[in-house]
């Protein structure tokens, strides 16, 4: 199609070449992890002979993580089978990393058959951008970047008074979706994150303006997902809708999934603002009177540097984080996101506008 060729010329993207350089550290889908996972499954499923001889109700039961994984892989495959141009929102944050890991499992031994899309606020943590690029290279993916900075430079977006750029991601996101003709976009949203997200469907229709209409959603029945849409509409797909923060961390631990280092305890220069520890950086400077100190911290969510706070933590590895999250008395967004504190309906309002 000629229109498609035209649009591909317009793509805002960085195509990364697959290099021969190996990523160091813990690989996301190492044989060890696969073996361990299979052993865990073996412990619930009995070999053929035994199961056939003594059928019992508890032989074939998946644990929570296996059940959630099976559901997510089913959803990812459904979307790939039913849509022409899917893409996966990849920020380098833990939820999108888990989602991408699930995609590699869904299509093994083939390549993940869609590009990843990142909306770069220009305020991202440099180590997260670095992690993003290494992951894309390791998996041989195409990366499409939508840049908030470019929209600001062109005068199409205005910097907010509070300096937060998370709410500014919507326009570049919708622009990238339109220019690339993506008809389905995978998001790592989870229903336990927020009251508005709790009402989100697994396949969620967006109108031609990218808007979500929470009062007029399609019923979602059994595991029969209806992705039909008309020209101009697109669908957001949330394969990890039913995972909780703790499920995500347990899965990261079980599968040995690599994450950006800032999810684990490290020393960092921070200052106190709005009851959160903010990192000191080029785009995140303390105001007069805000004292800069060095603290042992980690991040529970990784968003824009200008609105994501760190929590004090000595959880230096994934096992320690699992323990910490299980014992936490604050939600991850409540603890670390200034943008969700704007109003009780902050997330709902942003989602209606096309945010993810």
């Amino acid at each position, binding site marked *: 199609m000629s229109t498609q060729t035209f649009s591909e010329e317009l793509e805002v993207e960085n195509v990364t070449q697959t290099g021969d350089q*190996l990523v160091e550290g813990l690989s996301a889908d190492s044989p060890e992890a696969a073996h361990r996972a299979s052993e865990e499954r073996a412990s619930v499923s009995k070999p053929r002979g035994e199961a056939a001889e003594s059928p019992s109700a508890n032989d074939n039961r998946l644990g929570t993580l296996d059940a959630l*994984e099976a559901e997510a892989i089913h959803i990812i495959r459904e979307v790939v089978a039913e849509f022409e141009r899917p893409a996966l929102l990849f920020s380098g944050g833990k939820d999108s990393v888990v989602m991408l890991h699930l995609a590699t499992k869904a299509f*093994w031994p*083939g390549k993940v058959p869609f590009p990843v899309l990142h909306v770069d606020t220009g305020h991202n943590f440099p180590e997260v951008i670095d992690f993003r690029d290494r992951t894309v290279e390791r998996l041989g993916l195409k990366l499409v970047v939508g840049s908030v900075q470019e929209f600001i430079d062109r005068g199409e977006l205005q910097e907010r008074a509070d300096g937060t750029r998370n709410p500014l991601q919507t326009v570049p996101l919708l622009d990238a979706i339109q220019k690339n003709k993506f008809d389905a976009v995978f998001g790592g949203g989870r*229903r336990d994150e927020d009251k508005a997200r709790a009402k989100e469907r697994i396949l969620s229709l967006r109108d031609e303006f990218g808007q979500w209409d929470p009062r007029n959603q399609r019923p979602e029945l059994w595991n*029969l997902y*209806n992705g*039909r849409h008309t020209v101009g509409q697109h669908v957001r797909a949330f394969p990890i809708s039913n995972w*909780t923060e703790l499920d995500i961390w347990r899965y990261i631990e079980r599968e040995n999934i690599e994450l950006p280092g800032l999810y684990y305890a490290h020393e960092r220069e921070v200052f106190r603002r709005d009851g959160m520890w903010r990192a000191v950086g080029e785009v995140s400077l303390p105001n007069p009177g805000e004292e800069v100190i060095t603290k042992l911290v980690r991040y529970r969510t990784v968003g824009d540097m200008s609105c994501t706070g760190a929590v004090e933590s000595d959880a230096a590895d994934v096992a320690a984080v699992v323990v910490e999250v299980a*014992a936490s008395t604050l939600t991850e967004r409540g603890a670390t996101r200034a943008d969700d504190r704007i109003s009780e309906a902050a997330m709902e309002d942003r989602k209606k506008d096309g945010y993810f």
Partner: protein
Amino acid sequence: MSTALASATLFRFATAGSVDDGKSTLVGRLLHDSKAILADTLDAVARTSADRGFGGEKGGLDLALLTDGLRAEREQGITIDVAYRYFATDRRSFILADCPGHVQYTKNTVTGASTADAVVVLIDARKGVLEQTRRHLSVLHLLRVPHVVVAVNKVDLVDFSESVFRDIEADIRRVSKELGIGTAPDHADVLVIPVSALDGDNVVDRSPRMPWYQGPPLLEVLETLPAADELEDEHEAFRFPVQLAVRPQGALAPDAVARGLDVEAYRDYRAYAGQVAEGTVTVGDSVVVLSPGHEPRTTTVTGIDFAGTSLQTAFAPQSVALRLADEIDIARGDTIAAAGTVGESSADLYGSVAWLSSKPLREGARVFVKHGTQTVKAIVRTVSGKLDLDSFEVQPTTGLELNDIGEVQIRLAAELPLEPYAKHRRTGAFLVIDPADGNTLAAGMVKEHPGDSEDERYWI
């Protein structure tokens, strides 16, 4: 938050109730008392409760605020859409579909019940079994929800009276019997529990205020009921709707190759990806491939792959990829099934539908039917009846409106391996989709084929 064990299993349940029966409060209570609500969320609820003067001078938490997520819901004090909630105990991780009772109750209840292992139906102890309770039970029966738990709420407002509870319990038993809930072959059961959601009686802990009630509290019931898969696995034959073929043809995952995947060995790799819908499959099993327009083709399972691991056996609801002995043309929408367990495919679909659209159904409507991973064109030939939810009788009709449940005969553009929903909750379900805007019009459940079509009048 509970530190549930990683080995805990998943249990999905839904709540259904009528207006003002305290459903949001019960859900809030379950989340609160099982410590699934974190401090900042609770602070926000406390602030809003105080702002609105909840509980008068006594104060207190309006636990309904925990679940009413949309601005309009909080403003109007009602629940509009199905909301999903998560909490865990040491035994289970729960997914709760909280279904509002007043607007579009059929749509919401059908949605929540379609995936549920159990549904909790709320009744106000002061009002007893209402018309809407009968409707809820009727819908749950149609959807073949394995367990129905009736929570008789607000027992504090009837002075914890045993006789009031027993009368309601007897009513529920009578209605359930009328409906056929709890009778073979479906294994649904009905449990009735007296609760006070406001104060937490019999929700998480046994209430000392109702010594006459000897049963377990609600949470304990939810922790111990067998999930649908546990009930179904035993007697169901293997069914596997094919989602897609995995054929990398050289486009192998670079990370797998970098870690030593044998490129030559995988050059001609071909496997069929899907989620086991029912039953179990083992390497070496004889299977049939059912494709529209083909005779069933028999072959053997030579491998079950999952992300680099070879499995000996796979069972519902695992997502895997199957390798087969013979090179057969297999596409998305085909079904792989245990040999010798499938009936003939058919293009005549007899079913019950819950009509979920404001666009009414008329005979002759052209629609899409989605069944498993297959979507086909279809024509609704007849609308043969509409279920009267009050009398449970089927009334003659030629059309269905929003929230109606009716019986239809649909002519499909291709023959599909249809199986009765009463016995196959996963492979007996279908969607009716509007070809114009792609919206889901109805939830469908395949009925037994009545043999030779008695009615060819509507042949188009």
